[in-house]
């Protein structure tokens, strides 16, 4: 048996590889993935193009409808809408993915401490989580945003502080069950300490929870960022973001006469959200095959 074959065989037997197979067999999930990739490619590659200039002003084309020079038209000060939608997508994605990473870190740590620590750690961690969950999200978001200020970093902070409690609960529930499983007791029986249990047994066995949380939370975070920016508490102009572009739709004139200015970021937001949710649903079905057996 040569080495290549063994490697492939091992990968095929890996539980994640089997989940990937189930994911690939789900048409809706694959459509979501393709749509997401189709959105991601221009959004991430756009600044590499030579003509990228989301803040360049074309005074000869104010509020111009879509044409050959400006594919999605221009806004009130003559900036190219397509360029701004792509630039806004970048910022949305940076904000959302950073926020998801931070909230995953906090959520997993809090959940793991609650489940694997002693009863005091559990009580403290879960009461803090309850507290964070009880606060009304929009109000908290606005208060935090007004304290933290505008800009990319504060927006990331605000969104991540809001989304970790759900994950903390999911992780705690999973680990409470896992803690009593025999292989964890066996791992303690061969001398594994708390870190060993957490990194070698808890983390791999939470990976499905984490992946599904990450995708669905990404969609949430993009929406939250758009909402904050729409309200003027997120990404400040002139930097583009889907949220602050939609802000233009507040003016009836723009709403009625220049629909490309708000339709473009709106549709971009809608498609991204849809795609991510399809992928998220597909992932959760693929990672938990029992859910479909009912």
């Amino acid at each position, binding site marked *: *048996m040569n080495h290549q074959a*063994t490697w492939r065989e*091992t990968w095929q*037997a*890996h*539980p994640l590889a089997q989940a990937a197979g189930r994911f690939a067999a789900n048409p809706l999930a694959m459509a979501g993935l393709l749509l997401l990739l189709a959105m991601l490619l221009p959004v991430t590659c756009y600044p590499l193009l030579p003509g990228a200039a989301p803040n360049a002003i074309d005074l000869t084309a104010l509020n111009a409808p879509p044409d050959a020079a400006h594919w999605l038209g221009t806004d009130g000060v003559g900036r190219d809408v397509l360029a701004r939608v792509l630039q806004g997508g970048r910022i949305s994605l940076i904000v959302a993915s950073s926020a998801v990473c931070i909230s995953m870190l906090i959520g997993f740590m809090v959940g793991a401490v609650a489940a694997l620590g002693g*009863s005091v750690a559990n009580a403290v961690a879960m009461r803090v989580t309850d507290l964070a969950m009880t606060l009304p999200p929009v109000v908290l978001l606005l208060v935090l945003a007004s304290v933290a200020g505008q800009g990319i970093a504060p927006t990331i902070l605000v969104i991540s502080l809001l989304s970790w409690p759900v994950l903390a609960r999911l992780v705690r529930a999973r680990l409470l069950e896992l803690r009593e*499983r*025999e*292989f964890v*007791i*066996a*791992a*303690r*029986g*061969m*001398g*594994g*300490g708390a870190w*060993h249990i957490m990194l*070698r*047994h808890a983390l*791999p*066995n939470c*990976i499905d929870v984490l992946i599904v949380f990450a995708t669905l939370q990404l969609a949430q975070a993009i929406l939250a960022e758009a909402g904050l920016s729409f309200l003027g508490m997120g990404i400040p102009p002139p930097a583009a973001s889907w949220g602050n572009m939609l802000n233009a739709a507040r003016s009836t004139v723009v709403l009625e006469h220049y629909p490309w200015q708000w339709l473009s970021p709106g549709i971009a937001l809608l498609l991204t959200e849809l795609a991510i949710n399809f992928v998220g649903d597909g992932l959760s079905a693929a990672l938990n095959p029992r859910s479909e057996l009912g």
Partner: protein
Amino acid sequence: MAALLDIAALRTEFATRAGPILPVNDVSLSVGVGETLALVGESGCGKSVTALSILRLLPRRIGRIAGGSIRLHGIDGDLVTLPEDRMRHVRGGAIGMIFQEPATCLNPLLKVGEQVAEPLRIHRGLSHGEAARAAEATLASVGLPGEDHQAGRYPHQLSGGMRQRAMIAVALACHPRLLIADEPTTALDVTIQAQIIELLRGLQHELGMGLLFITHNFALVADLAHRMAVMYAGRIVEHGPVAAVFARPRHPYTHGLLACMPRLGMAHRLRAGHQTLPTIAGAVPRLDALPAGCSFAPRCVLATDACRRETPALAEVSAEHAVRCLRWSEL
């Protein structure tokens, strides 16, 4: 024989809603170097709790060791009071443990080789590569040779017997001086059982380790063990050399258990209706409602009023054979 493990008057307490119960009550036993001690009894009589107490793996917040001492040769101090960080090096280092259900004792998401390598990295501080090579060697010694690439497989790709071999490899990776095997063959086919027992016997011979073998299978006891201890409702009711106990059990419970074993040639008599398979009437009493006096008295054909009044002490039948029964001399 030098004592490797010496347990004295061990009491393990579980907190229940109805109050504390004692799944292990005043248990004293010892295992010598290279010796096999079989711990036998019905389900729920405290065999597994004794094993978990030795490693201090009792369920948190529920179980605690309420008294007694556990000493292991080569470890200063009492395992009962040893600080947790030193206890961690005893687990998997000086004492290895094999559990009953190989299917659930391996992490489904880690390759078998990695799981065998882990104790080596924890206790010996080996690097990734060194541990992987040592794990291959350990797997080969339990009959999972490297050319089959078993180390790179996940537990779900292995059969039950192979998983139990892998579990044994995890327990033996650091060459423990004592191996605790908690019903290691109960979940396996009879043919595989024989292979695993043969493997354990060979490894014990090779490594010279003490073996605490928990089972309810008397055939395995006769096959593998030097000495045996019979547990009932948390207490040891009889212990002694296997040959002596089998030849003449002195406790009515041991006697009953041995009588319950189906024997060769029994089948046609059973079919013909000349004989029924003997059983011990009744069930093990609940630990929160133990009868006064001897716990076995309600099921015992020899019980007298005295048995129902006082708890018998361990009486010496011979230097090595002891029994906890008032009427042992009549058996």
